């Protein structure tokens, strides 16, 4: 039967279009129930004995939720307890339209065989299809469609001869809908009613999202926040310029302060400061908000005070703290544009990891939840299992933030495990940094090559056979995903041939398939201490793509002819087959080079490479490439317990820089090649020059030692950094370089068609890309594909040549790389804590890296560890502090601290807050009475006082 669906819509150009779609109704859509004898279905989804202990429905029943239930209570539906649910097509479509993430979760449930969720395509069923009537809104029509389908199901199931007890229960929170459904004799409950009736499983109630009705009960009538403006007002306000639109970023250190990053036209973006609970107006980190800029006389300066929301303050405005906040520097110069949030354009809530902060009242069911991310406010949740959840890491979702509630309301999603447990902590770390770390799905794995895998005749036919070359790889110890190998040999004409061979990952990952999409989404492999989250399945990363020794592997080679002065005579790229002769570590390679007794081919090759690399490096540095340093920490992990037993900063050998040098060379050669070939859609990497103001801190630091750092160009910076030496203070130069690193901008991927500035500041190269690590970076896969097309080794596909799609991909890659870095740092920090936990309290020497208003930040070179020494203490009267912003210096009780001063500190682990365990440093030397502590193990009382703050 044919029906047509007609609707009118507005086109983007402003026209109005009438759209007619054909809509076919069928009579062969089955009900999916096991009991049904009428339907000729092959497989059934809904079970015969759909029993769940409920004091409302004692009979077996199927649930049929309406759209709003699915949207708000997806956590309930995800619970393994809830089975035998009918999801109508109407509901599915509406969910898809309203929320993509929830749609995805619903689809996942539908695919899960254990859950027995059935999609009933009621819109195409002859008996359940309805047309919209005159004067009926789209929502009313859908509600009616849901009722009609429920009715159909109950009648249909009643017709079955076997079991007449089976019923369908409609779940809806909409009062009108419920009444109408009851009128037509349907069994209808509100979601809360139903979930609370499941007496055998009371824990499910915790996962209920709070709906509007419930919120009223919880909160007092006192209105704490101004009303949010409706979207239409916001939109017209933004258009007229009275409001600005931007991303809300809460401050990590001060819960009463935030900035809104307003994207202007072009590069013209500003940051608007928001201060005070009222002005923040319930915006949560990462929300898209509308702000109103306050008049100039109300502008303030960002406070440099560290403020944390402590304890559950029940709905009282913390005037005291706000007063403290405002007492910041009032110098007109430091004032920034200040505004207030008038409305929320789009919430960006996700489930948050954190811990429960138990209510002091025993038997209370409402508790505050403290998220691990300090930028997220505490969330009030209702739970009956508080006792069990205490001490566990849990996930909580926000449901809403009414205007008379101090904290947002939320509900419990799931427990991640007990706090302090390494597994749990890693899980939290990954979730908080949005690192996709699930196991690869079957769909992804299905695209793996079949084992045993061999290089076929066809492969050999199109590839250059380089198996006879003396290729070797040099990597850190324990590396299983080897993506680069090198060779070097003399040519008859006196020149040398150097080859960089990169694993040919793009041979295995074909564009557009599930594995490709997954890799594109992950963007990068994430290396945590003691764990690696792969971008591509392990079979590829550690086996088929990994250029291990003595096996034949596919490679993408970049081969140069280089003369004696390390100048490139000729460059060529080719797909090849190689057979690596040795997989060396940096140390092993270094040993071979240094050992005069070794004269095999591999060693000779290494020596040749090393010689050329030194010339290349020298030339690069002459051009102004920066060598910055940032202490990298490495753990010695106990093989049994996987706990760190020793900690040291990574040491760099000559061979490290040898490999690096050739990788840079390959990347630059490839970047040039793909840009020449595809000027519009080459994926490149750039590193913008930092704005001069970024160097302020570096200049001030140098001035304190009577030195001048020239920052007008990369070359000048590199030269003046080299010149900056202080006698008897060898670490000074490193410190300065660490500071310089902090001044730099982030390097980013971009699509050449979308940008004009390609320069890579740090490497002093006019063009750069990533080619050499396709196993762990998706950008390299794209570059491989581009290069393969450029040399005619592979075919192209539309998305590769679409600069907008490329650009979108770059954004994702940049985001993933950033998050991966944060996750790595967090992982190092966590393991550092574990290390110090096992080592107890240590006394170490360090240098002052930064001076703050109430603290100094100290770097311990031995551990590459950075920590903060606070001079203010809640329990004690704070010492006299004088902060000089210009120098910068901080004078504590007469002793002044300058940058780079040498201090001695005790390091201990502050475990008072399980969620935010941190390294606590306290001053030992210089001795300042009332501030510094005794060098050896401090007495317990003193220690506790320190820890409790």
């Amino acid at each position: 039967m044919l029906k047509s669906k007609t609707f009118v819509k507005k086109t983007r150009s402003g026209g109005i279009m009438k759209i007619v779609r054909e809509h076919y109704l069928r009579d062969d859509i089955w009900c999916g129930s096991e009991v049904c004898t009428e339907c000729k279905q092959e497989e059934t989804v809904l079970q015969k004995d759909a029993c769940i202990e409920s004091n409302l429905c004692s009979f077996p029943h199927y649930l049929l939720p309406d759209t709003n239930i699915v949207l708000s209570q997806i956590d309930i539906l995800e619970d393994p307890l809830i089975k035998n649910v009918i999801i109508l097509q109407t509901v599915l479509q509406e969910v898809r339209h309203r929320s993509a993430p929830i749609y995805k979760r619903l689809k996942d449930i539908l695919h899960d065989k254990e859950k027995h969720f059935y999609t009933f395509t009621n819109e195409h069923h002859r008996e359940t299809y309805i047309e919209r009537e005159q004067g009926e809104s789209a929502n009313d029509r859908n509600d009616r469609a849901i009722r009609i389908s429920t009715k159909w199901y109950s009648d249909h199931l009643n017709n079955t001869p076997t079991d007449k007890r089976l019923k369908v229960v409609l779940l809806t929170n909409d009062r009108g809908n419920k009444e109408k459904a009851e009128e037509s004799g349907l069994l209808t409950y509100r979601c809360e009613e139903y979930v609370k009736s499941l007496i055998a499983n009371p824990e499910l109630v915790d996962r209920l999202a709070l709906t509007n009705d419930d919120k009223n009960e919880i909160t007092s009538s006192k209105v704490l926040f101004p009303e949010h403006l409706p979207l239409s007002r916001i939109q017209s306000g933004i258009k007229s310029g009275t409001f600005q639109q931007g991303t809300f970023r809460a401050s990590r250190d001060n819960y009463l302060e935030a900035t809104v990053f307003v994207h202007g036209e072009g590069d013209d973006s500003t940051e608007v400061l928001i201060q005070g609970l009222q002005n923040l107006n319930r915006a949560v980190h990462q929300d898209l908000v509308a702000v109103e800029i306050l008049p100039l006389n109300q502008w303030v300066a960002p406070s440099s005070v560290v403020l944390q929301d402590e304890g559950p303050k029940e709905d009282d405005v913390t005037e005291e703290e706000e007063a403290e906040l405002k007492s910041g520097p009032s110098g007109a110069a430091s004032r920034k544009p200040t505004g207030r949030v008038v409305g929320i354009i789009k919430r960006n809530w996700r489930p948050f990891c954190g811990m429960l902060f138990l209510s002091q009242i025993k038997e209370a069911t409402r508790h505050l939840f403290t998220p691990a991310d300090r930028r997220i406010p505490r969330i009030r949740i209702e739970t009956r299992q508080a006792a069990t959840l205490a001490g566990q890491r849990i996930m909580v979702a926000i449901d809403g933030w009414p205007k008379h509630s101090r904290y947002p309301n939320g509900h419990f999603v799931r427990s991640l495990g007990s706090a302090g447990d390494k597994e749990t902590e890693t899980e939290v770390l990954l979730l908080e940094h949005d690192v996709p770390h699930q196991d690869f799905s079957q769909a992804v794995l299905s695209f793996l090559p079949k084992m045993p895998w061999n290089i076929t005749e066809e492969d050999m036919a199109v590839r250059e056979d380089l198996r006879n070359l003396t290729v070797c790889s040099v990597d850190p110890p324990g590396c299983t995903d080897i993506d680069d190998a090198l060779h070097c040999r003399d040519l008859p004409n006196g020149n040398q041939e150097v080859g960089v061979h990169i694993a040919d990952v793009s041979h295995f990952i074909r564009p557009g398939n599930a594995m490709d999409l997954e890799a594109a989404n992950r963007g990068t492999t994430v290396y945590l201490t003691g764990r690696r989250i792969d971008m591509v399945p392990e079979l590829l990363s550690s086996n088929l793509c990994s250029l291990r020794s003595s096996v034949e592997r596919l490679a993408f080679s970049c081969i140069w002819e280089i003369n004696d002065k390390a100048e490139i005579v000729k460059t060529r790229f080719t797909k090849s087959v190689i057979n690596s002769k040795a997989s060396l570590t940096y140390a092993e390679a270094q040993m071979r080079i240094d050992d005069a007794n070794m004269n095999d081919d591999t060693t000779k090759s290494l020596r040749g490479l090393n010689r050329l690399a030194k010339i290349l490096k020298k030339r690069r540095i002459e051009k102004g490439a920066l060598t910055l340093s940032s202490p990298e920490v490495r753990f010695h992990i106990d093989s049994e317990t996987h706990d760190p037993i020793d900690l040291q900063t990574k040491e760099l050998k000559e061979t490290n820089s040898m490999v690096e040098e050739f990788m840079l060379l390959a990347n630059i050669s490839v970047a040039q090649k793909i840009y020449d070939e595809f000027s519009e859609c080459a994926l490149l990497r750039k590193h913008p020059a930092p704005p001069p103001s970024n160097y302020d801190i570096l200049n001030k630091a140098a001035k304190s030692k009577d030195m001048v750092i020239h920052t007008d160009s990369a070359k000048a910076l590199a030269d003046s950094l080299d010149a900056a030496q202080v006698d008897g203070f060898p670490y000074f130069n490193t410190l300065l370089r660490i500071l310089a690193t902090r001044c730099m901008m982030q390097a980013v991927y971009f699509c050449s068609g979308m940008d004009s500035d390609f320069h890579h500041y740090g490497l002093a190269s006019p063009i750069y890309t990533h080619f050499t690590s396709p196993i762990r970076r998706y950008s390299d896969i794209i570059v491989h594909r581009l290069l393969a097309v450029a040399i005619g080794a592979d075919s192209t596909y539309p998305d590769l040549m679409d600069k907008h799609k490329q650009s979108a991909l770059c954004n994702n890659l940049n985001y993933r790389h950033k998050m991966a870095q944060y996750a790595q740092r967090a992982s190092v920090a966590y393991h550092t804590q574990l290390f110090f936990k096992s080592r107890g309290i240590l006394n170490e020497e360090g240098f002052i890296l930064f001076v703050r208003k109430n603290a100094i930040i100290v770097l311990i070179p031995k551990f590459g560890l950075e920590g903060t020494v606070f001079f203010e203490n809640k329990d004690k009267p704070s010492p006299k502090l004088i902060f000089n912003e210009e120098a910068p210096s901080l004078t504590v009780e007469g002793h002044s601290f300058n940058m780079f001063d040498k201090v001695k500190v005790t390091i201990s682990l502050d475990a008072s807050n399980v969620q935010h365990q941190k390294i606590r440093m306290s001053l030992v030397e210089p001795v300042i009475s009332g501030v510094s502590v005794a060098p050896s193990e401090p007495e317990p009382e003193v220690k506790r006082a320190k820890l409790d703050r």
Partner: protein
Amino acid sequence: MATVQVSEAEKVYILHGVRDDLRVDGRGCEDYRHMEIETDMVSNTDGSAKVTLGHTDVLVGVKAEMGKPRPMVPDEVHCCFAWKFEGRGGDELGMELSNTLYKVFNNRYSVDLKSLCISPGEHCWVLYVDVLLLQCDGNLFDAISVAIKAALFNTKIPKVHISEDEEGGKEIELSDDPYDCMRLNVENVPCIVTLCKVGHRHVVDATLQEKACSVASLIISVTHKGTVTCVRKVGGGSLDPESIFEMTETGKRVGKALHAPLMALLQEEESLGKKRQKVGFLG
């Protein structure tokens, strides 16, 4: 235009018949053949109608699109709309049809142009009328004009309203209820009556055979009040002023008589709403 070959004897027979007010198919000189009208035939137009007159079969679709009014339109009328007729089956026929129809309908009295105005000087509805000839058995103009009138009657234009923000920027908003639409007032839309001079008399709704016997015909467009809005002579022969006057009078009379039952019929069909049995193209 499609022609048939008629022998001398047939011609004499037809001429004599007309003289005696009895035509080959038994009609009088001022009678139309059996006419069938069905509206809402094509769902992706805003209004459509199919008219069958004898074996002549035409389908008309009306599409409304948003457009800009032409600047040279007189001040008092802020809106305008263009008719585009695209004939099929020969450029010449197409040209002739579209020229004639343009003359007949493109004036501000046929349809209330103000109702098509969205915002003066900026937006208006432009109506596009597509005519499709399915079969031709004489008297195309009359059939087309009836079909156009029926299609315009059937036309449902989605309601829009202009919202204005503080800055004076205008935004067109579309009602999300598909039933919420505007109808056109088609009362003044004229119908064409084609009169063929056969011998000394004239006939309406000539068949192809009668047309072959005629030297000239007069196309007269008449409103429901009997106002003649356009007169046009087609064909190779000449007409004397006297018979033009006579023919115009007949045209007025016939035209008036055509409008009333047409409107009644359209209204009746409309009132049936969704219950109406659709006939479609195969019925």
